[in-house]
């Protein structure tokens, strides 16, 4: 059973993915974090929560830009900013807190630039556009071997 030394512990860092309550307007995106992963490093994603605090345009029936991605979603992207090309995401279809299952992890080892981006997925039609107040809490754990 491997134990963790203080040297080992100093090579493990949690990088915040934090967005306090913010208005996320229809069709818009916010980059929350950006990490450059080097060879020999591993980035682990286990905890990521998206909270749709409230819908600011009540009465709107949301028209999703990308069907299946809910009202809003937050994704981890490797060397791309294309909305649906994420390598791990939290999709929220209603108000409240949605998160990853913490009993599984996403492990990234490929060197490159990783981004965490929050998307408002509504507004394919003008009538189906929705503004919302959201917050995001999470962490990316980077381990240097």
């Amino acid at each position, binding site marked *: *059973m*491997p134990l963790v030394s203080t040297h080992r512990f100093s090579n493990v860092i949690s990088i915040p993915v934090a967005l*306090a309550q913010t208005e996320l307007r229809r069709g818009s995106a916010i980059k929350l974090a950006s990490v450059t992963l080097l060879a020999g490093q591993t980035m682990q994603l286990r905890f990521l929560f998206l*909270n749709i605090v409230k819908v600011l345009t009540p009465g709107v029936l949301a028209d999703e830009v990308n069907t299946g991605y809910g009202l809003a979603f937050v994704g981890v992207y490797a060397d791309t900013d294309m909305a649906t090309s994420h390598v791990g995401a939290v999709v929220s279809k209603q108000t409240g807190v949605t998160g990853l299952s*913490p009993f599984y992890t996403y492990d990234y080892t490929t060197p490159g630039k990783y981004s965490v981006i929050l998307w408002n997925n509504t507004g394919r039609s003008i009538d189906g556009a929705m503004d919302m*107040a959201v917050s995001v809490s999470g962490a990316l754990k980077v381990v240097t071997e």
Partner: protein
Amino acid sequence: MALITEKKLSTIVDLPVSLPALELKQGDWLVVASFKLESPQRITYDFLTLELIKANVALSSVSASNKVVSNLDLAFIGLYRDYTSGFPGLTPALDVVSANAVGAFGRSGATLTYATPGVYSFIIANNMQADSSSAIPVATSIDFTICATGSVRLELDSS
């Protein structure tokens, strides 16, 4: 000397509670962080600092009647379980850090641990309201520039 295993380390993460400086209007509040705790997870909470950077009125003019909740000072940030809606000061909090002047205010209490499943939220609020008996005109909104910094340790299991 207690040691932890690699497996244990991989199930621990420090979640940020981070709000850059922003203007919080009179009586307004917002969610800074929120996360869902499921059995057998637990959180350990120790560090949180609230800084009241500036106010748009002389704080010496603020009277007790300007406070929405009398014991929560000028502004506060609280940890709530299963908060739904409404002014957070009217809901029992698990822990609160409040500011009664310009400056930084940190937690001084013991480390807290929670394992009850639910949705935990950090909510920051401006505890001010208009009052005709105050030296501050009712038409003046008492606004604060405020920031908060903290961390919560989330563990996948309680072992």
